[in-house]
């Protein structure tokens, strides 16, 4: 019996030889336990070694294998062929990002936005090591844990029409991570981050379409994080105006 196969229509872009991306049809081996990334790896190894794409962990941890699969932003290592078989699958680079080559997108904009919110613990004064670690209760951990699960896969940016129309928008994951550190009991950078976030290009650009949350592979709920950030920024503002002596 001949091996089962599945058709993949892959968007290709080779800047040195073409002006615009074009679809290329590949017929990959099909196995029931294969994910889209397996089929693409099969193509790369056995059919066309020139196909470029990013991947690393193939287990939903590294966040590097995001692609548009039949128009949906998905991790290609977590999307099974059997959910589409025997229909062909259309594979494109993540939407809303420029294409560098084939399925590889230019992610500089995301990296800049991510660093712009300083997603690490900010302290006014570091305490000396001799005073021990910054301790945290399970309740304090629970406040931000969900937002700390982000794997920087950028699927949320691909799903966000606000980012598509206004590339200046800080975007879902960067804001969710800023919110994650703002909620961390060890962090003291909240008022600094709020200055960055509380702008027309930050949280207030979000109109709460909510698709970022739908596509997030690890249930971060970036849309919820942005709205919560709007709420806490607003309450902080009122507190500063009404009770300036309170400080933060």
């Amino acid at each position: 019996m001949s091996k089962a196969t599945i058709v993949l229509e892959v968007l290709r872009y080779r800047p040195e030889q073409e002006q615009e991306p074009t679809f290329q049809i590949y017929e990959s081996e099909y196995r029931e336990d294969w994910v889209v990334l397996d089929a693409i790896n099969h193509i790369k190894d056995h059919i066309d070694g020139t196909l470029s794409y990013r991947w690393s962990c193939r287990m939903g941890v590294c966040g590097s294998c995001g692609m548009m699969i039949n128009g949906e932003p998905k991790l290609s290592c977590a999307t099974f062929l059997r959910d589409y078989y025997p229909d062909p699958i259309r594979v494109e680079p993540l939407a809303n990002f420029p294409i560098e080559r084939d399925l590889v997108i230019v992610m500089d904009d995301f990296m800049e936005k991510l660093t712009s919110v300083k997603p690490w613990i900010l302290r006014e004064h570091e305490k000396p090591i001799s005073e021990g670690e910054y301790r945290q209760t399970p309740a304090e951990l629970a406040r931000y844990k969900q937002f700390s699960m982000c794997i920087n896969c950028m699927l949320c940016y691909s799903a966000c029409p606000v980012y598509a129309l206004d590339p200046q928008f800080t975007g879902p994951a960067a804001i969710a991570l800023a919110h994650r550190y703002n909620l961390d009991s060890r962090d003291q950078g909240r008022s600094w981050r709020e200055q960055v976030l509380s702008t027309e290009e930050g949280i207030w650009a979000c109109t709460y379409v909510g698709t970022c949350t739908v596509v997030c592979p690890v249930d971060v709920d970036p849309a919820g994080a942005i709205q919560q950030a709007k709420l806490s920024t607003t309450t902080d503002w009122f507190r500063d105006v009404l009770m300036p002596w309170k400080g933060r």
Partner: protein
Amino acid sequence: MRRFERPVPTLWWLKRRAYFLFILRELTAVFIAVYLILFLILLYQLSLGRQAYETYLGFLATPGMIVFHVVALVAALYHTVTWFGLLPNIIVVRFGEYRVPSKLIAGANYVPWIAVSALIVLILTRG
């Protein structure tokens, strides 16, 4: 190296059900705004005296106006219900590690809404 930027289609909001429902929710605001303008005019006519007020009431009773108000009511209900559904993601109530379930937060909004609506109906029907 030359990179390729894909244009955003004008009809992007038809690409996904969620986008379309979002646009629909935004559009409801137009109906609510027009309703409020009509209501402000009503108050203004009232200040002009009985004659003006009754003429305006006559205008509001025309079929077109009745259809508009029914549509505006549906729009307001759609906006309210979808918004209440989103609220649990915004309002997080925690007791230690315990987070109050979404259904409870969403449900808690319906109680005052129904109570206030019932009160208004009561006042209107008694007057």
